[in-house]
C-alpha cells in the first residue's frame, strides 16, 4: 500500500473504510486514534469529507479513494475510474414528503411544478427530468428534513439508510431513486502507471 495514497472519507463510511483497509493489511490504528490529523503519510492515508474524495482522486492528489455512490452520482462528470462496489454503507436515495396527502404530487398537479430541497441538486434535477416532471430544486447544506416541515418546499431528495430520521420528522418515502454503497475509485493515470499495486489491492478486496 505504501506506494499508493488513498483518500478515506470521514463520516458514516469512515469505520467501514478503515475496517476494509485493516483487511488489506494497512495499519489504521493511528488513523482511528487521531481524529484531528488529516494526513497519515506513513500508511498512505489521507482523510476528508466524502464529497471531496472525487476532487482529490481526479486531480491525482490521491491514487485511490473510497466514497459513496451518492457522491459519484452527484459528481458524475468527474474523470475517474469506479473500480469496485465495496458493499458497505448501503443506503437509498429517495424522494420523501410529509406523511399524509402527497403535497409534492398536489403541487405538481395544481401549480405545474414542485419544489424539492436537496443536498444533491444534480441527481434530483436529472431524476425529475428523466421522469418528465417539472421541479424547482432548492439546494440546502444542512438538515434537509427541515425544509418541507417549514413550507420551504413540498418534498426532499435525500439519502436514507434506515429511514429513522425521515420518520422522526414525519416524512415518508414516496419513491426510491437509487441504491448507494461505498465505491473504490481510482485516478485514471495512477490506474495505468501503478497497475500492479492497484491490481494487488483489488485482488485482496475481492478476497476479503
Amino acid at each position, binding site marked *: 500500500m505504501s506506494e499508493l495514497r488513498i483518500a478515506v472519507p470521514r463520516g458514516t463510511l469512515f469505520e467501514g473504510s478503515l475496517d476494509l483497509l485493516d483487511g488489506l493489511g494497512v495499519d489504521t490504528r493511528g488513523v482511528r486514534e487521531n481524529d484531528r490529523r488529516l494526513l497519515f503519510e506513513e500508511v498512505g492515508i489521507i482523510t476528508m469529507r466524502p464529497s471531496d474524495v472525487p476532487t482529490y482522486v*481526479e486531480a*491525482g492528489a490521491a491514487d485511490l479513494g473510497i466514497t459513496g455512490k451518492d457522491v459519484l452520482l452527484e459528481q458524475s462528470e468527474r474523470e475517474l475510474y*469506479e473500480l469496485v462496489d465495496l458493499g458497505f454503507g448501503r443506503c437509498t436515495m429517495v424522494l420523501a414528503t410529509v406523511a399524509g396527502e402527497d403535497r409534492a404530487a398536489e403541487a405538481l398537479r395544481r401549480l405545474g411544478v414542485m419544489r424539492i430541497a436537496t443536498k444533491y441538486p444534480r441527481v434530483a434535477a436529472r431524476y425529475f427530468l428523466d421522469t418528465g416532471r417539472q421541479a424547482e430544486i432548492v439546494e440546502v447544506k444542512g438538515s434537509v428534513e427541515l425544509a418541507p416541515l417549514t413550507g420551504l418546499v413540498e418534498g426532499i431528495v435525500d439519502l436514507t439508510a434506515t429511514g429513522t430520521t425521515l420518520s422522526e420528522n414525519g416524512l415518508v418515502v414516496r419513491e426510491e431513486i437509487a441504491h448507494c454503497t461505498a465505491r473504490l475509485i481510482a485516478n485514471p*493515470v495512477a490506474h*495505468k*502507471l501503478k497497475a500492479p499495486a492497484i491490481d494487488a489491492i483489488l485482488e485482496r478486496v475481492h478476497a476479503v
Partner: protein
Amino acid sequence: MVERIPSGTRDVLPDEMRELRLMTDRIRGVFERAGFGEVYTPALEYEATFSRGDGRSAVPEYAAPAYRVFDEQGNVLVLRSDMTVPIARLAATRYTHSEPPLRFSYFAHAYRGVRPQRGQSRELLQAGVELIGAAAPEGTAEALQVLCEALDAAGLETYRVGLGDASLYPSLLEAVGVSPDSRDRILGELVAGDFVGVESELRALGLAADDAELLLRVPRIRGGPDVLEGLTGRVEDAAAGMRAVHALVAPEIAGRIIFDLGLVRSLGYYTGAVFQVYDPAHGVPIGSGGRYDELLAQFGRPLPAVGFALNVERLHIALAGEERGRMAPRER
C-alpha cells in the same frame, strides 16, 4: 472594477510565455526534422466540416464544437474544437494528387466547451502531427516515435504512453451477440470509467459465463508485454496489432509503452490503435492520439491516417512537476 475574461481562458504573461515558447520551439524542431511540415488552418470552419454524413459529430464527444456563429450569408460557422478534422480537410482538398504519405504538424488553439468550476480550458494550445496515407502498423509506429521524440525534446523524463485499440471492445461485444443498444450503454460506462456499471450491465444481459468473464477482464488488462500473453480470439488479434507496433519502435520507446486493452476513448473518428500520454507528475493525460482510417474518406480522399495532439499547457504542468520532484525526490 477589474475587467474579467471568460472562465476557462487566460492571459499568458512573459515568464510563462518564455517557458512555453522554449518547449514548443524544441517540439517544432523534432516535427520539422521528422518531415512534418507545419500548417495553420482557419480558427473558423463551416459546421458541416465537423459533422459526418449521418449528422453525428465527426469528433469524439469531448472535442465537439461548442461555439457557433453565423456569417453574413447565414452559414453556421464553428470555432474549431480539434485540429485533426481541419487537417484531414486540408489534406484531402489541397493535396488531391500528391503521393501519400503526407506529413503535417501544427501548433494551434482548439476551442471547447467547459463545465463550471472544473479548471477546464475553453481555449487550449495543441501541438501535434498528422500522418496521412500510412497504414498500421508502420504509420502508428512512426507517430509514436515522433511523439516520444517530442516529449524527450520538451524535457519530460518519466512519461509513459498507453497503447490500446479502439475497435477491440466494440468488436468483442458484437462477437458475443450483444445488441447495439446494450453495446452503446456498456461502451458509455467504459468510456466513463465505471467498471461497476459495466459489470452490472453485463450481468443483466445473462451472457455465457466465460463470455461475461472475458468482457470483464479485458478492459482491466494493462501493463508491459507480458500482459498480452495467453490471449485468444479477437483479443489476440488486437494484441497482435499492438505487438507489431511495439516491435517496430526503437527500444527506448518500446519501454515507454503500456499496453492498455481498456483504452477505448470516446467514440468519434478513432478506428484502430489509440494512445494516451501519462506522466506521474500530473493526474490527467497530457496528450492523446490514434488511428482514424475512415475520416479522410469523408473529404473525398480515402486514406488511412494516424496522429496525436499534446496539450501544451498540461505538458508544461507535468514538466514543472517533474522538475520539482527531481529537486525534492521525497515529496510527491
